[in-house]
């Protein structure tokens, strides 16, 4: 679903965003991207959103080389992915319902479709009773749920979450992560950039660790680890091997 080949990003001020990064994310995978501030997490997310261009290398998303997408076509590419941010980024002057409906309006969905889909997705994220509330009347967790509902209402194949629990207390953070897992279970590829080590440790998902712009660790399941570059087949083989050998239960924290 997402293929990043030899991608580097050097900013104009000389700061290193990513360095010769190679990554393959399968359709339907749930991937955590971890690392300290300045590790390259945000650069990776921004590159995937095509907010910035790589200095070198190629990024293919859903079979499409995103480097070749013209500015005019960019909105159509972005519709393939739902995005969730740490600061929720909700439209303050719109209700929960309208914030979610907005994502459907831009794809020119009919009023009937909107009236059908929005309540469904709000029910899914547990906000059925808050449809008429404005963002400032919601708790942080509820705001993030609204953002999640907006991100998934058009059923995008990919969901990208940039520090989705950064502003939330641990319990609420767990709720949001559980929701992301539910969304992933429905077939959506989920990429989550986060600082929340405890959640990452507990959720037993693939973890990609970045440090100074380099991919330093890729843990597919607990105990399985690769350094640096690799190929899709290698992951598959190693995964199978580790699972067959029963290594999956062993803990190996980074």
């Amino acid at each position, binding site marked *: 679903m997402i293929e990043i080949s030899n991608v580097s990003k050097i900013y104009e001020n000389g700061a290193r965003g990513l360095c010769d990064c190679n990554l393959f994310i399968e359709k339907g995978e749930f991937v955590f991207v971890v690392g300290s501030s300045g590790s390259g997490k945000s650069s990776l997310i921004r590159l995937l*959103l095509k907010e910035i261009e790589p200095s070198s290398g190629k990024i293919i998303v859903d079979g499409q080389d995103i480097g070749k997408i013209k500015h005019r076509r960019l*909105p159509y590419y*972005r*519709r393939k992915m739902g*995005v969730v941010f740490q600061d929720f980024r909700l439209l303050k002057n719109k209700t929960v319902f309208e914030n979610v409906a907005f*994502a459907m309006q*831009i794809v020119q969905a009919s009023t009937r479709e909107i009236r059908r889909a929005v309540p469904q997705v709000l029910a899914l994220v547990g906000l059925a009773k808050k449809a008429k509330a404005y963002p400032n009347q919601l708790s942080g967790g509820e705001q993030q749920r609204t953002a999640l509902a907006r991100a998934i209402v058009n059923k995008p194949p990919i969901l990208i979450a940039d520090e989705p629990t950064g502003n939330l207390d641990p319990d609420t953070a767990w709720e949001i992560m559980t929701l992301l897992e539910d969304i992933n279970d429905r077939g959506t590829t989920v990429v989550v950039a986060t600082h929340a080590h405890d959640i990452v440790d507990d959720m037993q998902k693939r973890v990609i660790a970045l440090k100074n712009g380099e991919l330093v660790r890729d843990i597919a399941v607990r105990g399985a680890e690769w350094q640096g570059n690799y190929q899709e087949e290698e992951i598959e083989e190693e995964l199978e091997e580790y699972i067959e050998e029963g290594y999956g239960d062993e803990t190996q924290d980074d």
Partner: protein
Amino acid sequence: MRPRTIKYYIREALRSLIVNRLMSAASIFAVASSISIVAIFYIIGANVEYNIRHLEETVGLVVFIDDNVGAMGIERLEDRINAITHVDSARFVSREEALESFRDWIDDDALLYGLTLDNPFPNAFEIEVTDLAFQGDVVRALENLRPYGIDRIRQDEDIAGMLTTLSTVVQITSASLVLMLGLISIIIITNTIRITVNARQTEINIMKYVGATDWFIRWPFVIEGMLIGLIGGAIPATIIWLVYGRIVGAVGAIPQLPFLSFLPEDDIFMYVLPLALILGTVIGLLGSSWSVKKHLKV
């Protein structure tokens, strides 16, 4: 564009106007003030121009006819004068008519009685030229008609020249002022709208991430800008419509200014209304389009 999308744009624009009412009011005020100044200068310019035209009509070019020319000769002369380029009209004033006019002027019965016995006024043509600037050409053509019975030609050459210059100066000045003020208005309004749009940068940003096309984002802002401009243009137009007649009436009633004449209300409004509305809408449209453009590169 689907009807429901257009409906969405209009709804969003109206909603934004109301939600950001303070900024909307500031923008409308900026447009209304700028257009008022433009309109006031236009009205002053148009009225000065109107007065000059009025004066031009009174600036006479008179051709006196030789006393020996008979009725047939006068008729032929009239045809020749009318055939001259830039002659708008030639009115025959008979000796008797000239004396009658003089009678209205003079209050001396003895003199009038003497004049009636021996009318000294010759037959004449009062000629109006299409434009005072061509008076010189017309006079030269009239000189050539002397063999056909023209005795003398009287022209107010200095006044004609002065009025022509004044008219040109007023035209150029009012056009430059309107243009300059129009440009200043666009700059002021663009800045005001830019502040409105800047305040909503986050909103535009969110729209971009959710996958909105540039035009989907731009349209509500453009419609909002146009509405601001339209309202901003309608305010001065309405005020002018309400007060122009009264001001003109008041100024016209000042006894020291009997020579001033004013364009009728309808003539002013015929130009000021479209000028204010179109200028306002165009300023709003350009201002909002330019302001949004900067934020679309995300």
